[in-house]
C-alpha cells in the first residue's frame, strides 16, 4: 500500500528547511503559502528521505473566498504520497509559481488550471488556454461562472 505521510511531520520538515512556508497542517494535508510552492516542491523532490519524484496531479478548488491549489505528490522508490495544498485568497489576478521546472508533467495541468479556474502560473513557458479557445470569456470552472456571457 502507498503510505500517506502524516502532514504534521512533513510540515515540520518543510518548516526546518524553508522557514515560514507552512501555513497550517493536519494529519493528512499540509497547507503552504502559495508563493513558496516552488521552493517547497524543490525541497520535497530533492530531499533524499522524501524524494517525491512523481507529480500525480494538480487540482484547483474554488471555495468562493479563496482558491485552493492541491498537489498530489508521490515517491516511487519509497511508495509514499503527500497532499500539498495552498490557499490563494481573492478572485482576481491570482498568480502561483509554476513547478514546470521541476516536473514536466505539470505543464498541461497548470495550463488547465489557468484555463478553467483562472489562476495563472509565473514561470510557465506557455501560459495560455488549453481546452478552450483564445478569447473565451471567463473561466468556466469557477463557482460564479454560470453560463457563458452573451
Amino acid at each position: 500500500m502507498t503510505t500517506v505521510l502524516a502532514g504534521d511531520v512533513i510540515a515540520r520538515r518543510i518548516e526546518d528547511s524553508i522557514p515560514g512556508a507552512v501555513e497550517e497542517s493536519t494529519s493528512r494535508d499540509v497547507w503552504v503559502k502559495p508563493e513558496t510552492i516552488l521552493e517547497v516542491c524543490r525541497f520535497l523532490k530533492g530531499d533524499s528521505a522524501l524524494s517525491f519524484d512523481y507529480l500525480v496531479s494538480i487540482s484547483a478548488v474554488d471555495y468562493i473566498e479563496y482558491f485552493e491549489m492541491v498537489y498530489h505528490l508521490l515517491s516511487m522508490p519509497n511508495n509514499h504520497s503527500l497532499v500539498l495544498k495552498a490557499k490563494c485568497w481573492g478572485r482576481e489576478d491570482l498568480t502561483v509559481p509554476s513547478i514546470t521546472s521541476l516536473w514536466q508533467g505539470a505543464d498541461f495541468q497548470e495550463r488547465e488550471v489557468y484555463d478553467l479556474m483562472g489562476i495563472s502560473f509565473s514561470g510557465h513557458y506557455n501560459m495560455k488556454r488549453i481546452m478552450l479557445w483564445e478569447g473565451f470569456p471567463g473561466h468556466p470552472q469557477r463557482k460564479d461562472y454560470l453560463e457563458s456571457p452573451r
Partner: protein
Amino acid sequence: MPIRTEPVTINLGPQHPSTHGVFRMRITFDGEIILDVEPIFGYLHRGSEKLAEERTYTQVITLTDRLDYVSSMSNNLAYVLAVEKLAGINPPERAMYMRVMVAELQRIVSHLVATGFFLNDLGALATPLMYCFREREKILEMFEMLCGARITLSYMRVGGIFQDTPPEFWPVLSDFLDYMPGYIDEYERLITGNEILLSRTKGTGILSAETAINSSISGPVLRASGVNWDLRKADPYDVYDRMEFDVPLGTVGDNYDRYLMRIAEMRQSLRIIEQCADQIEDGPIKANVPALVRPPIGDAYGHVEAPKGELGFYMVSDGSIAPYRFKIRSPSLLNLSALRDMLVGCKLADMIVTFGSIDINMGEVDR
C-alpha cells in the same frame, strides 16, 4: 543562386485518420524530420468536471463512462472508489470481485483496441485491427449480459455494482478464458515477429525512464520504459491484493516495448480474471447505501490503474448530494506530456507510430 530550404509547418489534425479522435498537432518539418511539435487540445472538451457539480453522485457515473469510452469499466471503478473513500463506504466482497473482473476484461478490450490501431498506424490496412475487434466483440457481448450496454456501461454503483450476474454469464466467461490465450498467441504469431514491424518499431520513439517519471507518465507507457510502477501492486484496491499476477516491464521504452507490454498485460489480465472467477462467492452485491449519497464534508483522491494509466478522481464534498468539485486526473492527457521529447528528431512515419503506441483517447484528454 544558393539552394534555400525552409521548414514546413503542418497542422496534423484535428481531422486526420491517425490522431485517434479530434487532436491536433502543429508540427514543423525539415523534409521528413520533425523539428518541433505543439499539441493542441480541446476539440472534444465537454466540461465533464463542471457538469458533475450539478449531478448527484450516482448520476456522475454516466459522465465517467464518456471519458475514455473504450474503458468505461475502469472509469466507473475509479470514480466509485473515490466516492467510497470520501463517504467511508465498504463494498461487499462479491461486488469487489466482480469489479476487478470487469475492470480486467475492460483492460483487455482497451489493449486490443490499442494494438489494433497501433498496427493500423503502421499501415497494415486494418487486417490486425479486425482480428483484434473480433475478440473485443466477445467481451462486449459479455458486458451486454452484465448490464445491457456495450460501451457506456454505468455498471458500478457507489458501494457495489448495480445488478447481480446473470447465470448464463459464467459459461460464456469460461469459454472466453479457454480460447482467449490462443487468440493472443495468434496475434503474437502474426505480428510480433514481423520484420517490418520490428524494423519500424524497435528503437523509435524512445522514452527514457527519467523523462517518463518527470513527465507524470503512467500505465503501460511508463512500464515500457522499465519503471516498475503498477497501482494494482503499489496501492492495491478492491481485491487486487489477493491476486497473483506479474507486472511486465519493458527495457528500452521504444514503440516495440510498448506494443509488447500491452500483449503481456492482456495475458496477466486473463490470469486475474481466472482467479476472480475461482475465488468469487455468493453474497450481497451492494452495500447499504442510500439512493442519494451524502458524503461528509472533506476531500478524497481515488485512483486505479486504468488501461491507459493512472486514472484518478479528486473529489471534494460539501455534504450535499452533488460533488462540490470533481477533478479528473486523466492518464491520456498526462501521457502526452513527453510527446515532444519522443517526437523531435524522428520522421513523420515514426511520429504516427509513436503517437499510436502512447494510446490516448480524446474523450479522456479533453474531458
